[in-house]
């Protein structure tokens, strides 16, 4: 359900940044989203489509850059791809692990057109 809040935050930031940059048109918005960010990608896409209709960039293309989660083991320092939050080290079987990547939830860039 929070994907709608997230989509609205994205729209707000994008419009704010585009205004700052003096853009006349927003072409592409690139969003970076970790597989363990807590946001469901398809729910976010759905919410984005809805939210964009009420913005000045309803025709823009949204790129979703997915960051695969990687965890590191406190016991043996092994790094491994974490499929979910139950990240057990495949080498030593320890669950004393922490994330290096995968929690990202940010707007990487926008591609805009300026009038002059």
């Amino acid at each position, binding site marked *: *359900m*929070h994907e*709608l*809040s*997230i989509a*609205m*935050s*994205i*729209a*707000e*930031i994008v419009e704010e*940044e585009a205004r700052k*940059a003096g*853009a006349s*048109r927003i*072409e*592409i918005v*690139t*969003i970076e989203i970790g*597989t363990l960010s*807590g*946001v*469901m*990608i*398809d*729910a976010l896409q*759905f*919410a984005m489509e*809805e*939210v964009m209709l*009420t*913005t000045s960039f309803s025709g823009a*293309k949204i*790129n*979703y850059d*997915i960051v*695969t989660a990687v965890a590191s083991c406190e016991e043996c320092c092994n790094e491994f791809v974490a*499929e*979910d*939050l*139950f990240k*057990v080290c495949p080498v030593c079987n320890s*669950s*004393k*692990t922490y994330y290096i990547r995968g929690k990202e*939830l*940010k*707007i*990487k*860039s*926008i*591609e*805009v*057109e*300026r*009038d*002059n």
Partner: protein
Amino acid sequence: MCGTCGCGEENKITYRKAGEKEKLNLEHAHSHSHGNEEYTHDHHHGHLHDHFHEHDHNHATGHATIIPLERNILSKNDLLAERNRGFFEGRNIKAYNLVSSPGSGKTSILERTIREKGTELNCFVIEGDQQTMNDANRIKAAGAPAIQINTGTGCHLDASMVYNAVKALDVSSDSILFIENVGNLVCPSMFDLGESKRVVIISVTEGDDKPAKYPDMFQSSHLCLINKIDLLPYVDFSVENAKETALRVNHHLEFIELSAKTGEGMDKWYQWLANIKTS
């Protein structure tokens, strides 16, 4: 609700202190808490990895510029949360964000805490629910100042709501502020309120697979209260299973088993609060 986000859906957030007739008229700094959209979808991990970036539009005529932003999408909430946190630290207010599914016993635990330790601990309470003054009234009856935030359709509290509520409640220094979040194990996990510690509550009537179903909340919490242990003889709930699963998500998580009804285990909770207070 937000002029800036252009969302057409009117969702009014209201604030009212327990024992007062009037709702407070608070300007909300900024908040996004529209949770009234429902959608179902299948979640396939496979498709996450097979998207492409096509840059197939025509650059010839326009003046396309890529503006790198690297901006956290929740940065507005996170900034406000840090502001709250600084305020709390400066005044030695220990703030606890209590999260759980509906009905796990958050308000009951607070009522008992206030009745038994209220004077010693100097408690203030922010209650978050979609509707009604019920919980704030229960807290006031137990003996602590309380303010109710009604989020309407919103499914979580955010930092700006807490900011407004703290101002209105006039929380004093050297105190404890309990923030009872909206009953929901999903959405509140993403919204930092500026709390000192996050406390997740599960009750033994919910099934011991809660940590497996809602790992995010257990991952972001410091303490897990397992409530309603007076009912353990009547339900199939393995405390060990619940703990073991939660620990796989978050090996730093602490646990306290208690019953807000009988009072069993409450002393351990008070001990935990006391330790945080002096540390």
